[in-house]
């Protein structure tokens, strides 16, 4: 049998330059387009256009809890009210709502509704703070969100300040 003589091993060199070029181009693309996105969430509001009521008014219908937010000329919050009462802070509003529709309350959170009555030029962040105060809280022990009032609506918009 004829035995072939093996040639001495030769080192094969791969040209890495194109791959490194592509890798750096990809890296540059990702770095340029990278943006840290913070988590976002929604507060759901169901607000159909008010239709004229037909028939008799239901006596069992619970009137909404009216939350009034007043604004200064610069849009800053100047006053918080709930059912004609003045409150000092959103924390106090939260405690009032908790007392009214808390978990052990017979009224429960299901039937409760909050109507937000805000001044035209009030900064929107205060509305979200008010919605946060009435819609629930985060349980420190479990980290879960405990819901209070889920039905939130706006009072008819006021006219812009002249």
């Amino acid at each position: 049998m004829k035995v072939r003589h093996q040639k001495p091993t030769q080192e094969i060199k791969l040209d890495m330059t194109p791959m490194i070029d592509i890798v750096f181009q990809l890296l540059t693309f990702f770095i340029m387009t990278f943006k840290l996105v913070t988590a976002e969430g929604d507060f759901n509001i169901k607000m159909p256009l008010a239709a004229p009521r037909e028939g008799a008014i239901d006596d069992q219908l619970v009137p909404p809890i009216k939350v009034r937010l007043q604004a200064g000329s610069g849009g800053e919050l100047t006053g918080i009210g709930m059912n004609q009462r003045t409150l000092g802070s959103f924390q106090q509003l939260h405690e009032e709502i908790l007392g009214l529709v808390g978990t052990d309350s017979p009224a429960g959170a299901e039937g409760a509704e909050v109507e937000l009555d805000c001044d035209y030029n009030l900064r929107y962040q205060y509305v979200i703070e008010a919605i946060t105060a009435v819609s629930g809280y985060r349980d420190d022990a479990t980290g879960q969100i405990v819901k209070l009032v889920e039905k939130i609506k706006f009072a008819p918009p006021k006219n812009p300040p002249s």
Partner: protein
Amino acid sequence: MRVAKKHSGGIVEGDMTPMIDMAFQLIAFFTVMINFSQSEQNARIQLPKSELAKPPDAPMEYPITIHLTKEGTAILGGEEVFLEGLRPYLVRESDLLALQGRPQSEATVIVRAHKDARTGDVQKLIEVCQKNNFEKFALRAEERID
């Protein structure tokens, strides 16, 4: 003067392996972290923060995102319009829904309003949508992490 003899020239090659490893790890990181849902966002809008704002568990069936700037203009589909001029865009969305055989009550209007926008403008935006038979709204906020 003593002249140092030059050694015979040879190619000096650095080991590229660690650099390529790192580059690939970085590419893997960025590939995983890239977010394609940025089309929903707008650089001009700074959302208000809330500790209860949690990302939804399931995507909405038919979301319509409207940005509201602090100047009181709305941005819908990349076009900036005054609130009064929003109607044709909403009609277009309604037509798209009708083509798919869906009622307008299924659509959710996501309101991404700037934190310093006037509440009256937000209400006006909701009112314009209501007049076009949209009734489900989602007020978007940024999750506050303490």
